[in-house]
């Protein structure tokens, strides 16, 4: 059982890092393990229920939230594709032709210093719950060994998330998400305010916010912050 051995080795490495491991700590440990073991510049576990509702549950490395944040801002990218298709998306070089499927994402990621991105879907039952994302500040494919480790690490993280759902009295995923992901909350609140200002649906409001960020070259979070603090209105 080669993969059984792999799973045991990864779990041992992760649990060594943090002995009092709940699901949240375990998943954070898995991200740290991936960053160290595979020389990544960022790794994140993102839960998703469509492009608009995603949240980073845990991350490690300086680019941990870069890729997730960009995709939510732009509404496109490899994680959304991996989530929707259930198939890993491997982009060893974001400057290459293959990344042209997501031109805005690739350009923004390169500008932020991310050169390679690997997004593994977390599949459960007949659907998916999110992605396990790995990125590097230099181009190049993951080695076979590292890819195999990453797939098993993604499975462990997925199991921990599902297990957390079943534990009575455990911290809910919403709590775990809220501690790691306050930026997105502001974006959702701003979306509601813009919808009210324009008398529009929330999805159209989000599209307007996204477009404003893209047009101005500012992060979506910054504009959302201005909206929530009533410095910027969309109906003027």
């Amino acid at each position, binding site marked *: 059982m080669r993969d059984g051995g792999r799973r045991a080795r990864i779990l041992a490495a992760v649990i060594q890092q943090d002995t009092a491991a709940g699901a949240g700590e375990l998943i954070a440990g898995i991200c740290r393990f991936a960053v160290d073991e595979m020389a990544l510049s960022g790794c994140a576990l993102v839960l998703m229920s469509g492009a608009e*509702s995603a949240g980073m549950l845990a991350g490690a490395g300086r680019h941990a939230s870069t890729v997730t944040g960009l995709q939510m801002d732009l509404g496109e990218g490899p994680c959304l594709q991996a989530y929707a298709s259930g198939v890993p998306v491997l982009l060893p070089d974001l400057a290459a032709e293959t990344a042209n499927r997501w031109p805005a994402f690739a350009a923004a990621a390169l500008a932020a210093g991310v050169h390679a991105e690997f997004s593994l879907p977390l599949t459960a039952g007949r*659907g998916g719950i999110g992605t396990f994302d790995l990125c590097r500040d230099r181009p190049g494919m993951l080695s076979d060994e590292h890819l195999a480790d990453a797939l098993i690490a993604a499975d462990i993280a997925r199991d921990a998330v599902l297990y957390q759902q079943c534990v009575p009295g455990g911290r809910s995923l919403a709590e775990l998400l809220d501690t790691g992901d306050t930026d997105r*909350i502001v974006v959702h609140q701003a979306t*509601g*305010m*813009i919808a009210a200002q324009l008398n529009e649906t*929330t999805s159209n409001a989000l599209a307007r916010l996204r477009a404003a960020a893209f047009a101005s070259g500012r992060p979506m979070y910054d504009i959302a912050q201005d909206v*929530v603090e009533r410095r910027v209105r969309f109906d003027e």
Partner: protein
Amino acid sequence: MNGGCDSMSETGGGTAAQPGDFRQADRGTREAALARVFVRLADTLASDFDIVDFLHGLSADAVEVLGADAAGVMLADARGGLRLIASSDERTRLLELFELQGAEGPCLDAFSTGRPLQANAENSSIRWPVFAQRSSDSGFQMMCAVPLRVRTNVIGAMNLFRATDEPFTDDEMDIAQAMAEMAAIGLIQEKALREQSLLTEQLQAALNSRVIIEQAKGMLAEYLKVTMDDAFKLLRAYARDHNRKLSDVARDVADRKVTSTALIT
């Protein structure tokens, strides 16, 4: 699989016929039928899977492939008791229900021992006197049962009946057991899949409601010129007063089915 029948087959009704008994033509037809059966049994991952249809299919396939006249499938319920889930015809359904009611019969033994067995009219009347009388009245002389089992996990059993006294051969018992095991693997996988799908749905609902609550707070903050904190308090108070879930109220606010003014009146 290697025969695997318990003492019942050795005490008389046993497997007199030899594995070589199949004629070539029969063997070809049977292999084709078996291949079809295994493909179908492997199909529990389909999204429209239905457990009752699946087990009715299993009992019909078993009758066809194994030259039996009737079959029935029982599954263990949450309390560990057996329930009849599928049978090939009405006569067998009554017989199997009778087996459960009387708490004796081949299915129950295959389930409790986890081993295949068969019996003719004579030794079934020794082992299960009440049930044997009833099955004889139903026109059956030969019967066998195989557990639905994955390793040590027994989740049910399948009964096969013949109107003649021709015993089930070793090959036939092996095939019956293989079909039952395939079905058991499929059912266990399907259960795991269903549980995961349920968790996935719950998780997605949690993610969606988290977003929608923040959006509704934003809308109220704008319409009513209140802070986010106060917007949340209004949402929560409305949900409590109307005995509704917070996320449902938030969705109605976002969809404008509940107006912002309704929350302050």
